[in-house]
């Protein structure tokens, strides 16, 4: 006897249809899963068997059970196959009508007591099911709001017995409660908590308005991290297609926060400098999204940039350039979107005294050079804005609360809208100032382009229709320190 259930396996972020066939034949009892199933998938045997028994259903005795995951050449991994495998087995034993399985895709992990557990990537699986023409997807109750985002009717279930009753037509589909898509604004920290650091706040606003990468330089404890964490709060909210894209990535990575269906706030990722290159850019034997993809449409924050291994930093250059990461493997390749805004921090010198007018730096020039050497010019070139964050004075910390994020965000949104309408051009005197500065400072070709970009954003923020010399002058003050001879 044969029955067939359908689910989807993920290649990168892409769902691929997988048919789960269960075949029963008389003979020596046995249970085999074939079709390039990985370890977690092989272990499904034990969960499926215990789950079926715990649900007071019948495990076929004196039968040889073969489960085939087709196409057999596609690598399958994870525990999401538990539910379709058990449904196929139950269909093959006619404990549920097999034809019902043609209308329902299924995904979920089984507990030994028959409960259904949510798995990562449900959204992508549900999208695959919708594209394959399914009307319903059976999934864990916790995953239902996520699956619903794909535009398919989720059947939220808590227990295997419940699924079987539903498929037998004994009960109606359990209702699911859509989660509110709007997230309260309090969830992201506010800029009014940051005291002082006026220049850095201004640079943050410019970075937000023009989607520029930002380098914050200063000794530890000056609020670099605090400021960076507040960047998503002044960025425009994600549009629905963007939000879906981001949610899909986080769903696949299993980093969706509980109780949230759609991620509508730009993500903020802050990997530690001990992270490996595959963890940052994505990879693994079965490709998984890295931090750059988790930061897609949001902010990637790299604290203490020079502490990251150089190989990791260099691997960032391609996603910074292309906005995607292509992970190639023998079995095919996976494309992960990675369009993020990079915020990095570093000290101005190893001892941390530089940037403090009251303290003389004790670093030898060799140590200073070695510290700055850790960052390649090619990477530094990606930072449009660099701003020094000196150690704050006590009086600064006692200052009254500064402007809240909401106000800054209004200006950022206005600037972005204006930028869509018309891009301001440089006036003659502004171009002259820029050329003058290139000779005088001196500024590299790339440095010049960066200053021009930032000046344009400053002009847009100011509501100006042209880039004036004042805008170029301000942009010049955020140039990289390396362009000043050390």
């Amino acid at each position, binding site marked *: 006897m044969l029955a067939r259930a359908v689910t989807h396996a993920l290649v990168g972020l892409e769902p691929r249809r997988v048919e789960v066939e269960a075949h029963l034949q008389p003979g020596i009892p046995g249970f085999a899963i074939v079709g390039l199933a990985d370890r977690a998938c092989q272990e499904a045997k034990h969960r499926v068997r215990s789950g079926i028994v715990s649900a007071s259903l019948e495990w076929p005795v004196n039968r040889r059970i073969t489960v085939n995951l087709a196409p057999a050449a596609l690598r399958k991994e994870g525990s999401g196959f538990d539910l379709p495998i058990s449904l196929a087995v139950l269909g093959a034993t006619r404990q549920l009508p097999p034809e019902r399985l043609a209308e329902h895709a299924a995904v979920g992990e089984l507990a030994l007591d028959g409960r259904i557990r949510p798995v990562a990537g449900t959204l992508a699986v549900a999208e695959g099911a919708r594209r394959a023409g399914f009307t319903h997807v059976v999934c864990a109750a916790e995953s239902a709001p996520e699956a619903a985002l794909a535009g398919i009717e989720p059947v939220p279930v808590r227990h295997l017995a419940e699924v079987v009753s539903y498929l037998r037509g004994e009960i109606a589909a359990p209702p699911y409660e859509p989660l509110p898509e709007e997230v309260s604004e309090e969830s992201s920290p506010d800029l009014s908590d940051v005291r002082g650091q006026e220049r850095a706040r201004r640079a943050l606003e410019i970075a937000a308005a023009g989607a520029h990468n930002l380098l914050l330089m200063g000794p530890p404890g000056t609020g670099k991290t605090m400021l960076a964490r507040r960047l998503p709060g002044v960025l425009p909210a994600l549009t629905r297609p963007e939000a879906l894209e981001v949610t899909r990535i986080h769903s696949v990575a299993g980093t969706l926060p509980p109780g949230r269906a759609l991620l509508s706030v730009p993500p903020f990722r802050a990997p530690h400098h001990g992270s490996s290159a595959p963890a940052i850019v994505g990879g693994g034997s079965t490709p998984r999204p890295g931090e750059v993809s988790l930061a897609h449409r949001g902010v990637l924050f790299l604290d203490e940039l020079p502490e990251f291994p150089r190989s990791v930093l260099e691997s960032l250059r391609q996603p910074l350039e292309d906005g995607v990461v292509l992970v190639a493997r023998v079995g095919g390749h996976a494309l992960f979107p990675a369009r993020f805004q990079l915020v990095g921090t570093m000290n101005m010198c190893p001892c941390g005294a530089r940037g*403090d007018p009251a303290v003389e730096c004790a670093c030898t020039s060799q140590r200073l050079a070695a510290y700055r050497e850790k960052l390649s010019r090619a990477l530094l070139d990606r930072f449009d804005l660099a701003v020094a964050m000196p150690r704050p004075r006590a009086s600064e910390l006692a200052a009254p609360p500064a402007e809240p994020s909401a106000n800054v965000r209004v200006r950022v949104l206005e600037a972005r809208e204006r930028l869509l309408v018309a891009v301001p051009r440089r006036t003659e005197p502004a171009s002259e100032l820029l050329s003058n500065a290139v000779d005088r400072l001196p500024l590299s070709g790339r440095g010049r382009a960066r200053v021009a970009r930032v000046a344009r954003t400053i002009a847009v923020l100011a509501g100006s229709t042209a880039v004036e010399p004042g805008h170029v002058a301000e942009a010049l003050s*955020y140039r990289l320190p390396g362009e000043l001879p050390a």
Partner: protein
Amino acid sequence: MSEHACLRRREAGFPALLAAIHDPPARLHLRGSDDAGLLQEPAVAIVGARACSAYGRSVARSLARELAAAGLVVVSGMARGIDGEAHRGALEAGGMTLAVLGCGIDRDYPAAHAELARRICERGLVVSEYGAGVEPAPWRFPARNRIIAGLCRATVVVEARERSGALITADLALEEGRDVLAVPGEITSSLSAGTNALLKLGAAPVTCAADVLELYDLVATSPSAPALGPTAETLLAQLRDSPLTGDELVRASGIDPGESAAALTALELAGQVTVEDGVYRAAI
């Protein structure tokens, strides 16, 4: 000049001031612009410590800028710290500068200054008494210092500890009867102990470019300070009191961060302030 040219002591064009010292080099190897006439121009040495303060760097740079703008050739040793800043200041002013090496003419020492050497060669000269391939060695630097002092009518020491190579240059200049000037530093800073000691011994203090220029009967090029507006004036007045970070300036002046950043850049381009690691200083 593709290959490094060489100028013998007996040849015409060998700088007369250098030939007059008691042990002039037998020859000078030259690298850089074709114009060896640079060696005939009035020159001033700006020397100082490698390990120096932000104050020293700022002073060296702005002093060199003023002196080069007035037409003097700024001579120094291309070392880290004060020397490098002196060359940079002269280059910023579009003026002439000359670096004297303590190693072979083909070497860029220190390696970190390779880019600086390239820029000096565009408009100025790099010279050495050592031919290609000679390694830098500790005893070659005092010998190099006699050339620096010998090329110049006056030597300005910007910042020096009590026992600094820059003081050797000053001693050599004195022995040859050249003028020695020193930039006063904080009396509590060990980085200024050497220069303050020079002042005690009778070196002329330098508090502005004119102090040096009057030795050459030159006047400072009319302060080309363009009117930078009231914002820049306010900020400059604040910086004349003490060096401040950008944020401190914003608070002290009450000028909005964007506007003050623009004004500070204008001041910087006009050579009236220097900035290092986010700290702004008024130039001399």
